[in-house]
């Protein structure tokens, strides 16, 4: 009986939490120095859902009772669903026992807002505190910061958690007003600002005093739902860029809206999940963070939306053909990174390998370059190269005709692309 009840609770509270797409358990280096349980390293995916997403953390809500009524959320107060709530001890037990069996890297705990922000936040913090102090747990803990919670509680949360996040949910303020009238963007941004400063402060302290406690070592992240409101990709990516720059966010997650509720403010039920768009946003995000692209190179007022049929790097290259072809044996790393079909790893390998001799097509291929795309943009140690004066449209057609449906059909959020 008890077993059945706890299984039911887990089903309800995991189901309600799954639309938060962030699953990362990386970015923390919490060590197991107390001969306790666990450590946090580079984040392992212990399994994958049938839709191909990484499962790394036990991701649950403490409760799906909520006093708010955000239109896009299954837990909204007006939705007629089964409600449940875990006790603090139940969450602690499941986390520890899952962790010991190597099912998970740690816990991602979020919650509906019951009573008020502080009341909710206090319980989330209590779970984290119990894990860290009573169980000597060093695994990964991600807590959701409840908008409007007091600075005191946020500070305590930072002492136990590896990562904290506030979801922006809707990329623009206007969109938020429409769908979550009770929420206030200021309440969401305020804790982010507080945490940003606190993290900087604690880092400085740590540099001076080795013994100073670590504070949210994996930083902050946020999530935006795309496709629930009519924002363009420029708006989405500019918001992301703004938060990366001004709040030192570690990650921004994009979650293609899954229509689970009928509401005239939202896309109709049975609208398909904008998975390709979501994938393109992640690719664009990648380009901003690792490939040295500026946001307005990727999207701008003339090109407000990402191409759905080709990835944003190829799309940029086709708009900037005058930059190419580049000589792979001479060009700077920065430029090599901009070539379609060359990823981070291959780019670095090229730069290492060419010190030993000039590289030809065969070697590039073996290094891992996708020649069917790259060949239009580079020259190497070979007399064979693309001599035709192709237009952007030609190149796009050639590439699309050769690449399989991969670029047209379902793509994924966990990507290792380019």
């Amino acid at each position, binding site marked *: 009986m008890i*077993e059945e009840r*706890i*299984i039911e609770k*887990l*089903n309800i509270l*995991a*189901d309600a939490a*799954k*639309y938060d797409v962030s699953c990362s358990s990386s970015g923390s280096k919490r*060590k*197991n120095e107390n*001969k*306790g*349980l*666990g*450590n946090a390293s580079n984040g*392992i*995916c*212990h*399994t*994958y*859902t*049938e*839709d*191909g*997403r*990484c*499962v790394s953390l*036990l*991701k649950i809500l403490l409760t799906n009772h909520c006093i708010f009524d955000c239109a896009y959320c299954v837990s909204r107060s007006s939705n007629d669903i089964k409600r449940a709530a875990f006790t603090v001890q139940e969450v602690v037990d*499941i986390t520890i*026992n*899952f962790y*010991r*069996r*190597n*099912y998970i890297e740690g816990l991602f705990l979020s919650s509906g807002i019951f009573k008020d922000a502080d009341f909710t936040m206090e319980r989330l913090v209590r779970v984290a505190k119990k894990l860290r102090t009573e169980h*000597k747990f060093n695994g990964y803990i991600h807590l959701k910061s409840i908008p409007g919670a007091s600075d005191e509680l946020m500070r305590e949360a930072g002492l136990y958690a590896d990562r904290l996040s506030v979801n922006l949910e809707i990329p623009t303020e206007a969109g938020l007003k429409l769908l979550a009238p009770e929420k206030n963007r200021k309440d969401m941004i305020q804790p982010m600002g507080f945490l940003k400063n606190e993290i900087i402060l604690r880092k400085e302290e740590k540099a001076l005093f080795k013994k100073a406690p670590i504070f949210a070592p994996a930083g902050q992240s946020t999530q935006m739902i795309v496709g629930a409101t009519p924002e363009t990709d420029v708006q989405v990516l500019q918001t992301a860029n703004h938060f990366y720059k001004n709040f030192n966010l570690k990650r921004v997650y994009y979650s293609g809206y*899954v229509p689970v509720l009928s509401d005239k403010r939202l896309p109709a039920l049975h609208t*398909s*999940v904008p*998975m390709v768009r979501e994938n393109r946003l992640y690719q664009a995000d990648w380009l901003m963070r690792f490939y040295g692209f500026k946001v307005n190179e990727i999207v701008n007022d003339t090109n407000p939306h990402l191409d759905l049929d080709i990835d944003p790097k190829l799309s940029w290259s086709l708009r900037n053909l005058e930059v190419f072809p580049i000589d792979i044996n001479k060009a700077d790393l920065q430029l090599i990174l901009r070539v379609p079909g060359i990823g981070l790893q291959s780019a670095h*390998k090229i730069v*290492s*390998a*060419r*010190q*030993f*001799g000039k*590289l030809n097509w065969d*070697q590039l291929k*073996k*290094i891992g370059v996708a020649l069917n795309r790259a060949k239009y943009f580079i020259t190497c140690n070979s007399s064979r190269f693309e001599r035709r004066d192709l237009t952007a449209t030609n190149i796009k057609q050639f590439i699309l005709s050769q690449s399989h449906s991969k670029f047209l059909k*379902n793509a*994924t959020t*966990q990507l290792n692309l380019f």
Partner: protein
Amino acid sequence: MTTLVYDGTFEGLLTCVFEIYERKLLHVKIQKGEWLSKALFEEVIQVITDEKRAGRVLQGLQEKLSAGGMQRLYAAHLAGMDDEDIMLIGYIRYVFDSKKNVEEDYGNKYVLRLAEIIRMVRREKHRMEAFIRFQKLQDGIFYAAIEPDFNVLPLVGKHFKNRYADQKWIIYDMRRNYGLYYDLHHIEYITLDFATSRPDNVISSYTEDEGLYQNLWKNYFKSVNIPARKNTKLHMRHVPKRYWKFLTEKI
């Protein structure tokens, strides 16, 4: 063409390299274990592992490679992949025949192949770190069985020791029939005798709550799926079928 037969150890491989240079052999084949073929006219050398000779080759390598480079070479051999010894010998020869450190000379086929082997070994190691599922026995030991594609068990010990410092565990490679046992202080190599009890049954006795947590985990795995996003192909690529039999959520 000369065939070198050796005992499969890393020292043995290095002894082979010594022989190759001493006898000035150009074209060689390498074989692990015993020489069985009775064919005539084949030139075969049975290489007896020799610590001194191996030591000299090792020293030479250490002068030419970084510590990380040495480790990668060792791990590549340890993995025990079929037919790759000849590539490793080729790599070692290339290292000796070059003036500067060639670890990053990815234009060379041996260097590139070693990088590929290492990538495969790493991936298998990461998969083990991800896919191992412990089951708690009555005596408090956490037990996991695995069947990795390559011999990566020695490479994963450290990870599990750091992580599960406060619990006793056993990880057992069913295919190669040996395992690691951590007793809260050290890791030991062990072999279990399955003659009397079936492997998956060492485990005659789980703890009381083992079933509950397995059940919870299976339910969790089902709950987090979003049917509207189903993508079986991607799922299979991340979790290939051959690993399923040890994955609690897949049984």
